């Protein structure tokens, strides 16, 4: 069900109407579950995928409840390891072939949005073990896992926030005309970004596809830069537009979803970029990868110091972030670039603090010329990294070689 299709628009309109009727009653959760099921089935490729997803979700639900028991708390690590291996197999990560596990990739399971489901489930398991989630009920778990707002993309909501929204009373808000107009405006703006701007940019990024490249990958520098910018902006408008649509629809049905973008194009550096781009993913990575990893590095190898632990922590975290986005080797490069970008910023910040006095550092941060230059640099770095979001290194490297040859 494409977000641009009449089926999707009709689905959303019928859902909002049904939600208005059920709002405040005990049937609200059941109505949402029915619509979630319909939406999920619309994306299901085959019966094997559906059967796998049902078994997998049932397992996670039981494990989340089991891990709250003191005797089972130590079982978290093997559970997470198994879940991660399962994720790599289901998403058919190419890296498994290199590890001579290619036979595991020969299956028919194909679940759109499984990356999001996987991260939501890891959070559920870890927070259940830590006692941060008190109770996981079947209906809430089902709606949380398969919530159509965020099934295929969008913000990664936390379970407790979802559970609070499920019982929140926003009657006054959803019947307010101004609120209704504001949300409709957000949805239409989202569609303009998703269906108009993103598509135009995708066409402009055209030279950056294997089919459109001239033989030998010769692409003039100006075209290369233009295509790279267009590709980066395409991803931004496509994803942030989709988020606007789902957040607007959720608001109309009396559910608040977390915001996912806060002007990432104006980020001063890669560290700031990740506090403005796919914010819920960054927060997830911070809570479940960066913080535990830094603690582990610091406790096992204190000689590395805060800077060393932080740099390794940032690199690994954003390398994983890159890898999470796709199953090919391109995402390995994408992850390396993201990781190197953030770790590099951390190192640069440390150097500045070591070389400058507090007052000089404060003035450096406040200097507008430096800020603009840093923003331009960060924009270019991100655009370069995003080339690998859509292209394989085999496509990009000959182009880069050709450009370098032309420059030298």
């Amino acid at each position, binding site marked *: 069900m494409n977000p*641009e299709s009449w089926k999707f628009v009709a689905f959303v309109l019928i859902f909002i109407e049904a939600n208005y009727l059920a709002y405040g009653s005990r049937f609200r959760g059941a109505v949402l579950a029915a619509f979630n099921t319909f939406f999920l089935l619309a994306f299901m490729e085959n019966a094997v995928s559906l059967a796998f997803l049902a078994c997998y979700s049932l397992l996670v639900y039981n494990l989340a409840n089991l891990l709250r028991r003191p005797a089972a708390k130590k079982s978290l690590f093997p559970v997470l390891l198994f879940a991660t291996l399962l994720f790599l197999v289901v998403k058919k990560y190419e890296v498994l072939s290199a590890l001579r596990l290619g036979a595991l990739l020969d299956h028919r399971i194909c679940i759109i949005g499984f990356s*999001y489901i996987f991260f939501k489930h890891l959070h559920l398991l870890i927070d259940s073990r830590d006692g941060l989630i008190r109770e996981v009920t079947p209906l809430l778990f089902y709606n949380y896992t398969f919530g159509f707002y965020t099934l*295929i993309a969008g913000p990664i909501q936390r379970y407790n926030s979802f559970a609070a929204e499920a019982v929140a009373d926003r009657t006054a808000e959803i019947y307010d005309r101004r609120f209704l107009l504001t949300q409709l*405006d957000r949805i239409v703006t989202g569609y*303009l970004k998703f*269906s*108009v701007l993103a598509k135009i940019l995708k066409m402009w990024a055209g030279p950056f596809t294997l089919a459109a490249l001239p033989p030998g990958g010769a692409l003039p520098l100006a075209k290369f830069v233009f295509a790279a910018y267009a590709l980066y902006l395409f991803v931004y408008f496509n*994803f942030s537009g989709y988020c606007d649509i789902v957040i607007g629809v959720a608001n109309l049905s009396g559910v608040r979803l977390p915001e996912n973008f806060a002007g990432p194009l104006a980020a001063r550096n890669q560290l700031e970029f990740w506090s403005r781009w796919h914010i819920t993913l960054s927060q997830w990575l911070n809570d479940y990868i960066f913080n535990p990893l830094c603690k582990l590095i610091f406790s096992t190898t204190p000689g590395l110091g805060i800077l060393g632990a932080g740099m390794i922590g940032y690199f690994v975290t954003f390398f994983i972030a890159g890898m999470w986005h796709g199953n090919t080797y391109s995402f390995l490069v994408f992850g390396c670039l993201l990781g190197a970008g953030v770790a590099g910023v951390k190192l640069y910040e440390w150097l500045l603090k070591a070389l400058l006095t507090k007052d000089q550092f404060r003035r450096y941060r406040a200097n507008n010329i430096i800020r603009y230059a840093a923003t331009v640099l960060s924009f270019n770095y991100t655009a370069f990294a995003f080339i690998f979001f859509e292209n394989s290194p085999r496509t990009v490297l000959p182009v880069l070689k050709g450009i370098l040859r032309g420059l030298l």
Partner: protein
Amino acid sequence: MKLPRDKDELRLLAWLALKLFILYIMLMSSLNKSVVIYQKF
């Protein structure tokens, strides 16, 4: 639904109508082929 009397609401409504019009025109043009990145996830 009655037209709002509030100026802000009227402005919002006008913007919404304009955006919908642009969206309609663009979707009816050559931009009708869907491009979705979520299929990667």
